[in-house]
């Protein structure tokens, strides 16, 4: 089986699972939900296989152009969902997350990615680690965002004092808040590791820890926002609505850092220069 086929297969499974989750949500069909969950797990296996094949082929995680980065982001989303499911057993989360995952993976497949030529400077375990940690952090923050949206919807339902059908399908505010905290508590150290390992690698490969290029600046802002949220939560008890809103703000900064900076602002992190920068 050729590798692109595996990726399309994974996308197809994600699409099916999205449909299953919709049936689960609208018709309250538990079986449809469980099937959708299994489908998304199977899709994840296929997508993992495709990453494995390409990583071995290239000698490096192939996330150096936009399409690949989006696909990898989608993979991280689903991975984090599967981790959260093991802990919280929340199928509804799949219903809210699968559209995002499908969109990311689909965008990753249709965006024209230039063929990857990886220079020796990128063939490093450090770089793989840097990318892996940053993207895993992104995955957890994205889930915190999804959970934040669910929280706001459910809170609105309860505050309105006229709870509708959505109210019965969403979990309790407390559970949502706990998952939000869990995502922050895991995502933040990952993000930190990602930034630190990137800096160390930059020093080793390019001779400087930190160059203040736009990606680095925005990552720092992102890091500070989540640090502030985590700090306020632990000391003053910023929970519930405020934590949900902050997670959503954090995620919009994340999107800008991930897509906006890489596409709009010049810098050695942008996909353009990543392609050019083949030798230091």
């Amino acid at each position, binding site marked *: 089986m050729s590798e692109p086929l595996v990726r399309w297969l994974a996308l197809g499974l994600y699409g099916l699972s999205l449909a299953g989750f919709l049936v689960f949500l609208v018709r309250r069909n538990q079986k449809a939900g469980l099937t959708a969950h299994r489908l998304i797990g199977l899709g994840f296996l296929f997508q993992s296989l495709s990453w494995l094949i390409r990583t071995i082929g290239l000698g490096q995680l192939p996330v150096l152009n936009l399409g690949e980065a989006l696909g990898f982001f989608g993979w991280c989303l689903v991975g984090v969902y599967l981790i959260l499911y093991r802990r919280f057993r929340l199928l509804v989360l799949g219903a809210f997350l699968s559209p995002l995952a499908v969109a990311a993976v689909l965008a990753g497949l249709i965006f024209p990615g230039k063929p990857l030529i990886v220079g020796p400077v990128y063939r490093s375990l450090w770089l793989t680690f840097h990318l892996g940690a940053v993207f895993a952090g992104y995955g957890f923050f994205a889930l915190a965002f999804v959970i934040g949206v669910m929280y706001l919807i459910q809170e609105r339902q309860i505050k309105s004092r*006229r709870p509708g059908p959505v109210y019965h399908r969403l979990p309790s*505010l407390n559970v949502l808040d706990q998952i939000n905290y869990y995502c922050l508590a895991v995502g933040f150290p990952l993000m930190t590791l990602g930034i630190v390992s990137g800096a160390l690698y930059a020093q080793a490969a390019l001779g400087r820890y930190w160059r203040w290029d736009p990606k680095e600046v925005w990552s720092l802002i992102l890091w500070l926002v989540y640090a502030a949220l985590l700090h306020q939560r632990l000391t003053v008890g910023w929970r519930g609505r405020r934590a949900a809103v902050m997670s959503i703000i954090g995620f919009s900064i994340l999107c800008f850092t991930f897509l906006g900076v890489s596409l709009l602002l010049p810098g050695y992190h942008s996909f353009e220069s990543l392609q050019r920068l083949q030798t230091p």
Partner: protein
Amino acid sequence: MNIILIGLNHNTAPVEIREKLALNGCGPAEAYHEIKTLSSLRECIYFSTCNRVEFLATTEAVDRAVKDIKAFLAAQRGLPPALFERCLYIHQAEKTVRHLFRVASSLDSMVVGEPQILGQLKEAFRAAVDHRATGAILNKLMHKSFSVAKRVRSETGIASHAVSVGYAAVELARKIFGELEGREVLLIGAGEMAELAAEHLLNHGVSRITAANRTLDRALALARRWGGRAAALEEIPALLAEVDIVISSTGAPELVVTAAAVRSVLRARKHRPLFFVDIAVPRDVDPDVNRLDNVYLYDIDDLRGVIEENRAARAEEALRAERIVEEETIKFLGWLHTLEVVPTIVAMKEKVERIRRAELDKTLARMGPLPPDQVQALEVMTEALTRKILHDPISFIKRAGRREKKDFYLDLTRRVFNLDAEPSASGEPNGQENDE
């Protein structure tokens, strides 16, 4: 064999009649002892709850059975039959099955979807089995009704929406706090609805109830009842910093909890959620507290609104439940039909003939061309063989058809000959390799 159901329920009989007919006075031992003397009934189960009295029975003679049961009811309670006869419904066959499935699934209950009825049915069934009043048909029917009820519960949302103030409060609390274990409740004032709500919360895991009241005696009495603590009204502002759920139901004309009082404790609470249930009229809790972050307030009208919507949701789910009941009724009637003698004999003959044909064809094919008279001889021989093998089983079930335990024997025979298996599996016997 006919299945019949005679009874009355909250729709057909007023409480004055239901309470007179309820059989909970005498134990099931006496009742079943009496019932078993009624020669017209093969099997019988009765249920008696505060909303219904019903007899489910199998009989050969429907009219006599109906008359016997009416006479039994009248004699038991010493009532003239004319008093309750108007209220009785009498179902037969399909209608009986459907009715029972609807009762078990709580579609026939006063509050649709309340699950108590299933437990009551199970208990009634156990009593009937203990007194050997049931047989193959009712056993199967009752078990089926339990599984239908289970299916309805898991495949529809019929029981998942609260339809009382107390449960609506619990449901909301659980949507805010998740599990209620370890949460604390403050009950301000007293009153039936408030106390009921507090009790529901306690049953769902709330760890402690504090009762605050204008008169300390009353507070102490309530606290003792739930093993909680008592407090005076003046302590409320301090208590607001500790508790998670506040139920308020005082007769006070002015606000008991102000928004300012709540706002001042938010920081001390570290913004943990706080849920107010205000049952009092005029209201006790400042409506503005609902505007505060992580504070939720429902007054009595809000709760009634929630219940109203839940009722509508249940009615909608009930429609889906009716479809399940219909489906299962048809399935059960299919099984019932197989318990007649003739279809069973036909099925046995067909099955054996199928096997004979298949084996004979196989043998003839293997032996190559034979003269017609030899083929004829083989046909005659195998036919005689199968006829003689079937002779005893067939005369056995023909005799069984006149016996008291006919259904049991028929069911057994069908299982021994594997007559109800899927058509694809029935033709080919499993022992192919033994032929060689």
